[in-house]
Each structure stands twice: as structure tokens, then as C-alpha cells.
């Protein structure tokens, strides 16, 4: 039953077109169609096959096309490039040299996707099939080995053995808290109850993170197989995948994957004739960050306002409808089939001391190669930013990274040798978190950056507990007034006091970590706060109220839009074309900058 469907002969030559969200936005589906039409026109549908895959990782250079058994990589493919690639694919199959990847114009080309520097340090376990298989085809997933671990476990392992294996692998939850997955399962297995739930947390609310989305879109069966294994281990018979509302493509692929798996007896009643039953339904989130917190998620699935509640009782004892409920993150679950197939030792051999295995990061910000990367735990920040990310995308050096989203911290360039693992990051005040990693250059003001995160968490605070609801509000007011040039002596100390208070007294980790961005920037970029407060200066020119506006004469076309829109008549034209801004009249509203059609107005 697990054998691939052989009724469609496997094509000899495969053209992989990335159909992850970022590449689709760049037009990859039209590219795929172009290939398919050409193949059909030439009557080669049997020997050349187009596979629409999940995310390849290098979103910055999409649409990504990877061709043939060697994986020849074509970045940023447009329709013209597609036509030229088709000629090669249908002809001599030699790589089309001018279209290959280059680190910079004129540099040597790199033909294979695996050889691109972005990939050199990566090791793919969670993303093993992303970019390889067709996520909408169960046969494609079979061919890549999905569901083999499940069938082995059901036939040869007891639930306790599965738990032991996962515990020994050292896997820790990838949803943020980093709790031992094996231990959580043990608790859930031991809990009393005839009906237990195993749920997948796919809420992925951290702004700037898209790891879980990529896995769901690229290899949904790996997540379902992980869920079934987890359910078998703890004795659950039902479960939900709680998916974020903004991920329609992930929902669509997951829905199809569930239906396909049920139709083949891989989910549902009496899975593979083993007597074990487990069924999965999808619940779409409705746009609340706090619903990623497990007790809030439970409230939301039950149809209530998604607000957290105090723990204990932990969901493993009393969760959904008061029944034992184990909640695991998408990435955690996608690791499970690999661990069961390859053994605990193989997994534990990857990574560092208390941080085993790999971690997927969404590498974004001011680096050359933004995208999705999976690396062994323990790489340094510098390796991530410079080797994988290719360093700064501007002429300005990278000055900081923010790791772990709104609950994480900012690290300065002087700490770039910090290893990315649970313990090393905790020792400098940051967290692995869910895996957002944003590198920023000198054009980012760290005070404004901290304000941004705090504004997010404050907006998403559910309002149930006072420290989070009011404490983050007061902190946000203070940080905002600093960025607006109204900071007062004593503000820094107040922020630190409030931050520590909110951290230690909030009900859930939303409040418990909300102050991290502020506290870490206060620790590592204190001089920027001090400059804002005492000198009314923003060195990044990012805080509008602390900058002056000027017209770049070379870019100004003399259209007069700025003058017309200036609310205080601060803009004059001396000779007809020469526009200038009078700094004494200017109220720094920034309207002229936004209105100028030629981007000729800048902050200095």
C-alpha cells in the first residue's frame, strides 16, 4: 500500500519550478506553464516533467528553476529566460551559461544549486523535501520517502519506544519555548483520559518568519506523518492543525494532503491496518498573534476569544475540552519522521551540547540573500549573516541582528561570534525563538526598531493581565516619545524598571518576552537612546522628527508637488526649478518626502 503509484511512468528528466509563495508572487506559475506548453508541443510529456515544488530557500533570487539530476540552478527566471532554458532542456541539456547564478555581475557562474554559497553551510532535515517534491502529489511524497517511518513505527515499535527515541534525539520544541519534545510526549502519554488530542501549532505569528509556512507549502505530508507518529506515541485519536489566516496556499495544500492521506489509509481509521486510528482537521486562525500561545490556541479552537490562561494545569493534562492535549510546532513535527527513520543517535550527532539537530531560520533584512535556511544548531551569527546571507546588500555594514521576533533580542556586530543555540543565545539576552533572523544595517535606528516590536506586541496583547496590557502600553509611550524627540532624562531607567516588571509578572510569554527588544537594545545600543534623548539626534536618520529634510538638486525635476503639498509653506523655488526647504519653517511631517514622485527629497 505504501509503494509509489507506478501507473504514470517516472519521467527521465525533471524541471523543478519553485511554487513557494514568494516565487509565485514573482510569476513562477506562468514560467511553469510555459515549460509545460513547450513540452506538450514537442510531444515530450513522457520524458520531461515539470514539478511545481515548495520553497527552495533562496527567495531573494526567485523565481527559482532547478533542472535535471544535477540540479542546475537558474535564478530570477522570466519568460524569455524560460524559453532559452526550454531549448536546452529539449535539446542538448547543456546548462545555459548566461542564465546561471553569479554572486555578482561578471563573476564566475555557479551551475549547481547545491554549490551556491547560500547553500554551502546548510543541512536539510526539516526541509528535506521542500523544493524537491510536488507538495500536491502523494506519490511524489512517497517517492521521497514520506510515510516510511510511520509504517515502520506502527509495525515494529511500541509507543514507548517512539517516545524514548525522540527523547534521546535531544529534539526540543521549535515553537519558541524549546521544551524537550520527548518529555512533553511522556507527560501526555501518562495523562489520564480516553480521548486525547495531538495538535499542530501552525499559527506562525512572528512577523518576519515564514519557516512553518514553507514546510506546510513544500512538504505537508511530512507534517502529517509527524503528527500521526506523535499521536501514536501519546495515544491520541484526534487532532487539529491550527493554521494562520494569512496562509491560504498552505491551507489549500494541507487540505489536499489530508484528503489524499485519508484516501490511502495513512490517516483516519485503522491506519495501515495497524488498529491505530488518528484523524486530523484544519482550523484557520482569525488574526490574533496571541493564539500561537498554546492555551490561547485551545480557547480559539473551542470557539472562544483566544486568551491564555494560567498554567498549570498544562494542556498535556487538561487541554482542548479539558482532555489531555499535546501541542507541537510544525517544524518540531516535521523532524519526527526523520528521527524515527534515522535513529536518535544520528539526530543527536548534529548540533551542540543542549541544542541538537538543525533549525530553520527565515533570514531577512539588509543581506544579499534573503530566504529560508536550515543549518545545524551552533553556527555563529557571523556565519549566518556573511557566509549564508552574503553580507550587507547595501554599502552600509550590518550593525545588528534581531533573532527570535518580537520576543527576541537584538545583538550588536561585536557579538556576531555568538553561537546560535539555546544556551549561547540565552546568555546574551536573545532567544532562538521560532527562527526569525533579521539583519539590519546602519540605516536602521535601534530605538525605532525596538519601538516597532513593542508596538506589535502591545497591539497584540489580549488585555487579560495588567502588566502586559498596561505595562507594554506605558513602555511604548515612552519609547515613542523618545523617537519623536521628546525623550526626557530618566526615561531609560524607567524603561528598564518597567521592562523587568512586565517580564516577571505577565500571565503568558507574550508579556513575559515583550520587553526583550527594548531591554536588549538598551543593553547594547544605549548610546542611541542617549543621543535621541539628550542631543535630539537619530544617527540613522530614521526618526523623521529628528531629521531635517533636503532636496537633492540632481534628482529634482522641478514639478512642484512638494511645494503644493507642504502644509506650512516651507518649500520655495528660487529660480523656477530650484526647490529648497526652509529648515526653520519645516515641521518635519515628511509629506514632501512621501509625495515626491522622483524620490528627490531625503532626510539628512
Amino acid at each position, binding site marked *: 500500500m505504501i509503494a509509489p503509484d507506478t501507473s504514470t511512468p517516472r519521467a527521465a528528466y525533471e524541471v523543478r519550478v519553485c511554487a513557494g*509563495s514568494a516565487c509565485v*508572487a*514573482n510569476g513562477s506559475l506562468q514560467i511553469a506553464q510555459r515549460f509545460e506548453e513547450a513540452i506538450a508541443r514537442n510531444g515530450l510529456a513522457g520524458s520531461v516533467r515539470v514539478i511545481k515544488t515548495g520553497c527552495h530557500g533562496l527567495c531573494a533570487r526567485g523565481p527559482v528553476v532547478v533542472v535535471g539530476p544535477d540540479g542546475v540552478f537558474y535564478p530570477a527566471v522570466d519568460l524569455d529566460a524560460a524559453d532559452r532554458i526550454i531549448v536546452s532542456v529539449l535539446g542538448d541539456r547543456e546548462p545555459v551559461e548566461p542564465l546561471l547564478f553569479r554572486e555578482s555581475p561578471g563573476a564566475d557562474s555557479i551551475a549547481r544549486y547545491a554549490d551556491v554559497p547560500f547553500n554551502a553551510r546548510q543541512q536539510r532535515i526539516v526541509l528535506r523535501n521542500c523544493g524537491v517534491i510536488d507538495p500536491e502529489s502523494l506519490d511524489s511524497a512517497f517517492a521521497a520517502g514520506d510515510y516510511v517511518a510511520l509504517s515502520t513505527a506502527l509495525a515494529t515499535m511500541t509507543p514507548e519506544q517512539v517516545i524514548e527515541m525522540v527523547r534521546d534525539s535531544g529534539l526540543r520544541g521549535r515553537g519558541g519555548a524549546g521544551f524537550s519534545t520527548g518529555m512533553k510526549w511522556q507527560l501526555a502519554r501518562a495523562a489520564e483520559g480516553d480521548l486525547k488530542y495531538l495538535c499542530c501549532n501552525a499559527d506562525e505569528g512572528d*512577523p518576519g518568519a515564514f519557516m512553518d509556512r514553507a514546510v506546510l507549502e513544500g512538504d505537508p505530508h511530512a507534517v502529517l506523518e509527524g503528527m500521526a507518529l506523535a499521536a501514536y506515541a501519546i495515544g491520541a485519536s484526534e487532532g487539529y492543525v491550527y493554521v494562520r489566516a*494569512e496562509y491560504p496556499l498552505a491551507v489549500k495544500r494541507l487540505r489536499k494532503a489530508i484528503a489524499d492521506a485519508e484516501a490511502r489509509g495513512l490517516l483516519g481509521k485503522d491506519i495501515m491496518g495497524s488498529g491505530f486510528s488518528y484523524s486530523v482537521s484544519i482550523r484557520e486562525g*482569525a488574526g490574533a498573534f496571541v493564539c500561537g500561545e498554546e492555551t490561547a490556541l485551545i480557547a480559539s479552537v473551542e470557539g472562544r476569544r483566544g486568551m491564555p490562561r494560567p498554567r498549570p494545569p498544562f494542556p498535556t493534562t487538561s487541554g482542548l475540552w479539558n482532555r489531555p492535549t499535546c501541542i507541537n510546532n510544525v517544524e518540531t513535527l516535521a523532524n519526527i519522521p526523520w528521527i524515527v527513520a534515522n535513529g536518535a543517535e544520528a539526530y543527536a550527532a548534529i548540533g551542540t551540547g543542549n541544542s541538537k539537530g538543525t533549525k530553520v531560520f527565515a533570514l*531577512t*533584512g539588509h543581506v544579499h540573500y*534573503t530566504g529560508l535556511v536550515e543549518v545545524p544548531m551552533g553556527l555563529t551569527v557571523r556565519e549566518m549573516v556573511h557566509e549564508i546571507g552574503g553580507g550587507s546588500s547595501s554599502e552600509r555594514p550590518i550593525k545588528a541582528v534581531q533573532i527570535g521576533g518580537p520576543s527576541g533580542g537584538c545583538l550588536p556586530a561585536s557579538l556576531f561570534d555568538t553561537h546560535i543555540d539555546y544556551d549561547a543565545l540565552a546568555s546574551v539576552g536573545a532567544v532562538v525563538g521560532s527562527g526569525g533572523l533579521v539583519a539590519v544595517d546602519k540605516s536602521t535606528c535601534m530605538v525605532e526598531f525596538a519601538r516597532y516590536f513593542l508596538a506589535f506586541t502591545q497591539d497584540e496583547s489580549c488585555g487579560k493581565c495588567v502588566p502586559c496590557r498596561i505595562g507594554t502600553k506605558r513602555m511604548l509611550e515612552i519609547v515613542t516619545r523618545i523617537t519623536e524627540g521628546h525623550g526626557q532624562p530618566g526615561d531609560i531607567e524607567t524603561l528598564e524598571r518597567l521592562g523587568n516588571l512586565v517580564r516577571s509578572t505577565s500571565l503568558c510569554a507574550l508579556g513575559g518576552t515583550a520587553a526583550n527588544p527594548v531591554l536588549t537594545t538598551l543593553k547594547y545600543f544605549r548610546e542611541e537612546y542617549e543621543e535621541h534623548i539628550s542631543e535630539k539626534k537619530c544617527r540613522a536618520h530614521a526618526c523623521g522628527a529628528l531629521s531635517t529634510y533636503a532636496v537633492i538638486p540632481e534628482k529634482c525635476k522641478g514639478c512642484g508637488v512638494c511645494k503644493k503639498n507642504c502644509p506650512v509653506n516651507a518649500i520655495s523655488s528660487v529660480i523656477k526649478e530650484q526647490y529648497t526647504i526652509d529648515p526653520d519653517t519645516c515641521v518635519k511631517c515628511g509629506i514632501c518626502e512621501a509625495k515626491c514622485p522622483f*524620490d528627490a527629497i531625503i532626510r539628512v
Partner: protein
Amino acid sequence: MSECSCTSSQSPEFDATALEAILSSGSTVEGALVPILQASQDAYGYLPRPALEMIARSLRLPLAEVYGVATFYAQFHLEPRGKHIVRICHGTACHVRGATEITDVIVGELGVEVGSTSEDLSFTVESVACVGCCGLAPVVLIDGETHGGLSTQAARRIVSKLQREQTQ
């Protein structure tokens, strides 16, 4: 508790057909409220008060609870929305790559503040936190279609195109 006696759900402009279908297919599932609100919003574009009242009656929940849930989640809207929905990503990646400047341009061009709808119901402008295309930052979604790697110029171009289409 006595039955609510308000009758506004029978108001002439509210066509209950779609909602009746939703309620008859989904109201027995455990925790049905959120999926029902989602389906209703899909059908009506927003959640009109008569719809909330009907849902409350059908699920035997106090209207206050239905209202409480509908206002808790950012996805639900109690007011009609524009024909075109412009959603500007303010996720971290987009933020550091200029989402604020893009927002200024879009708000300026359309004359609609973030979080509101133009009076003629043509445009709604919203901010969202990360749409999962961070590799393409900054990103704007127009009627669900992703536009990535935007400069202020490009943002100005796409909204003026949208405006032209709307006035034609």
C-alpha cells in the same frame, strides 16, 4: 434566560440565504463559532449585525459572546469594506526595508488612512503583520495578489493603476 426580542435580523436589506446554508452545515461541530464567522464573512464581505444575531440564536449563545469573539480577532470586520483591499505588510522584514515609506505613499495616493475604507467603498487600506513572503520585502497585497520588492516609485505606480481601473 428569555429569548431576545429584537427583530432587526428581519431587516429588509439583509439576505439571510447564505447564512442559513452556513448554519445548517456547520453549527453542530464542536467550537463552531469561529469557522461560522469566517464563512459568513466570506459570504458577506463583513459581519453585519443581523448576521451576528442569527448566529447567536442558532448556536444558543448570548449575542455579547458572539460580538466578543468577532471583535477579538483582527480578521473580522463589522463594517462594510472596500471593493479593493490594499494590505501593507508591516512584518519585521518589510519594516526594515521601508514599509513605512510605502505606507505614506499609498495613503497619500488613495487618500485613505490605514485601517479605514474610502467613503465610496472603493478602497480599504490595512496593515498586516507578515504575509510570509519576507524574502521579497517590502510586500503589499492588493486583492490578495502579492506585490514584492517595492520601491516607493513602484508602490505609487501600482496604486495609481488601481485607481485608474476603479474609475474606468
